[in-house]
């Protein structure tokens, strides 16, 4: 009788790793270059996601610091939109809304400010003059760069605090020398210079004077044209809803309410669009890398016909051969993937730290990057592996 006691061919998992890496070890240059394709793709995706996350974190930190509970109330301007001025009692009405924590009005003064009294009147430098409440700095969360902000005491006198851009244009960086500016045909003492406002950049180009001083020295009638409102963060939307009617009960439609932090978020949303674009480019690079691996593997199968024949002669099944070549493609992709993740994290770390951001690489980015590499490797290796396994042993051995 014919024997049937034939134990199957077996290949240990460790030996699979060894056989799958034969091609890599014997053709290092080629392996390196084909892994490089995957590496670039993965690095692009990881760094884009990492940078986007890091900048988002920066924005969140900024929003956290500045708060998203600051609202601006303005009178609409233009045809059919009103006079551009808020009703006199608006500030008081708004302050009475329960969740409102602080309000601060500003009112544009019809005056110009110059470095000294010799500058021609046309050269205003684009610096406006605003009459402001003394709590403006607290309401906006602004910071003093030098000197001090207006107080109840100084607001009554010809003193001025300059926004960051205004100070620059007037050539004043500090108040150590007690500088003066020519404001509305009169000398005003500069008592403070501000840092840039992140939520209200229009104030960076303004010279800020006290309300009393504007009445007394500039003949200004202090009717607010903007009110900054700080509310309880829980009720921002509710306050936004009632603000127009509170500020102008007769014509609520003339009131514009905005949230300055929305602008920051909009900017971030715009950069999100770029993130998507770059992710797309990374995906294309990855695809090209995958095609590169498939190409190299197909060539490898052709070149290594003799090895395939030998392995079949040594007892390898078709599956052993397929798994060997699939394993080689996977190995290439994983090496490229790991290299890409490291490179991507490196790029993120360097750029984020140069921007003063926290270095954040989301798990999704590196795990997804590795996952994508493995998937690409598997797909790229499938066809060459099938080809290798379908090769008949005699045909494979016929190559001399």
């Amino acid at each position, binding site marked *: 009788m014919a024997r049937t006691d034939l*134990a*199957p061919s077996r*290949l240990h998992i460790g030996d699979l790793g060894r056989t799958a890496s034969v091609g890599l070890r014997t053709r290092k240059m080629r392996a390196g270059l084909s892994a490089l394709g995957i590496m670039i793709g993965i690095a692009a995706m990881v760094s884009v996601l990492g940078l986007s996350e890091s900048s988002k974190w920066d924005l969140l930190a900024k929003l956290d610091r500045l708060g998203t509970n600051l609202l601006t109330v303005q009178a609409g301007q233009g045809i059919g939109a009103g006079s551009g001025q808020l009703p006199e009692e608006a500030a008081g009405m708004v302050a009475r809304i329960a969740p409102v924590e602080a309000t601060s009005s500003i009112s544009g003064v019809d005056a110009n400010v110059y470095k000294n009294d010799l500058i021609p009147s046309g050269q205003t430098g684009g610096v406006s003059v605003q009459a402001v409440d003394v709590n403006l700095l607290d309401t906006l969360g602004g910071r003093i760069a030098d000197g001090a902000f207006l107080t109840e005491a100084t607001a009554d006198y010809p003193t001025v605090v300059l926004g960051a851009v205004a100070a620059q244009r007037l050539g004043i960086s500090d108040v150590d020398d007690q500088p003066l500016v020519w404001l509305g045909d009169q000398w005003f003492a500069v008592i403070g210079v501000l840092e840039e406002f992140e939520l209200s950049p229009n104030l960076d180009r303004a010279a800020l004077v006290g309300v009393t001083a504007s009445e007394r020295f500039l003949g200004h009638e202090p009717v607010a044209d903007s009110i900054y409102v700080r509310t309880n963060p829980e009720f921002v939307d509710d306050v936004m809803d009632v603000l127009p009617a509170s500020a102008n009960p007769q014509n609520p439609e003339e009131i514009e309410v905005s949230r300055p932090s929305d602008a920051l978020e909009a900017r971030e949303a715009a950069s999100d669009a770029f993130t998507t674009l770059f992710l797309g480019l990374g995906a294309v690079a990855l695809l090209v890398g995958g095609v590169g691996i498939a190409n190299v593997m197909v060539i490898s199968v052709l070149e290594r016909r003799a090895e395939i024949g030998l392995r079949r*002669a040594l007892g390898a099944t078709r599956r052993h051969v397929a798994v060997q070549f699939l394993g080689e493609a996977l190995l290439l992709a994983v090496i490229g993937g790991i290299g890409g993740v490291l490179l991507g994290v490196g790029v993120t770390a360097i750029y984020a730290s140069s921007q003063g951001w926290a270095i954040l690489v989301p798990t999704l980015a590196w795990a997804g990057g590795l996952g994508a590499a493995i998937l690409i490797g598997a797909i790229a290796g499938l066809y060459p592996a099938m080809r290798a396994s379908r090769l008949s042993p005699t045909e494979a051995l016929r190559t001399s």
Partner: protein
Amino acid sequence: MPTAPPGLVLSIQNVTKVYPTEPPVHALAGVSLDVANGELLAVVGPSGSGKSTLLHVIGTLDRPTSGDVVIAGHSVNSLTDRQLSSLRARHIGFVFQQFHLLNGYTAMDNVADGLLYTGMGLYDRREMAAHALVRVGLGARLMHTATKLSGGEKQRVAIARALVGRPAIVLADEPTGNLDTKTSDSIVELIEELHDEGASIVVITHNREIAERFPRTIALRDGLIESDDRNGRGTG
């Protein structure tokens, strides 16, 4: 169910192999052959006589168009592709004219690969490979990579790889075809020694001089056995 008489490592009956080309090529036109355990024989014949096809069929690298092949008691016709792989892994050793060594591997790992698909662990494979290399006279070359070996040394490595698993039969396809005369002689001597130690070996060669040194010579022509000479030293 075809059976093999006891003591035979190989028995083929009326084997044909037809390649379906246009016109069809009858590479083997009905070959019957028995090889006893421990026998050493040469298969000679001119190009196109069917030598290589016979070796492929015996080695289960190719299936016959008709006829029975029984190796080490296993009837090839009843085995699946995977079972044939297993048969090769455990019962058949191959030696090729082109050596077919893996260049990046050491001599020892090349030989150890002869046991790769048996499921034996790496440590045991290497130990057996080292013994086999010592047996073929390459004890001092264990850790040399294949590229650093001479032609004769490469073929000795290949022979060690074929023998390392103690297969029922070793099939050598023109083992001296790429070697100079002196090196050829030493390889033939090695084959004779291994035979004396009990290995069953079939050598395919176009070199009659070498063939006649072996105890049994089978001459093939046009896919048929032309002669089956026992040179007085054979087992049967």
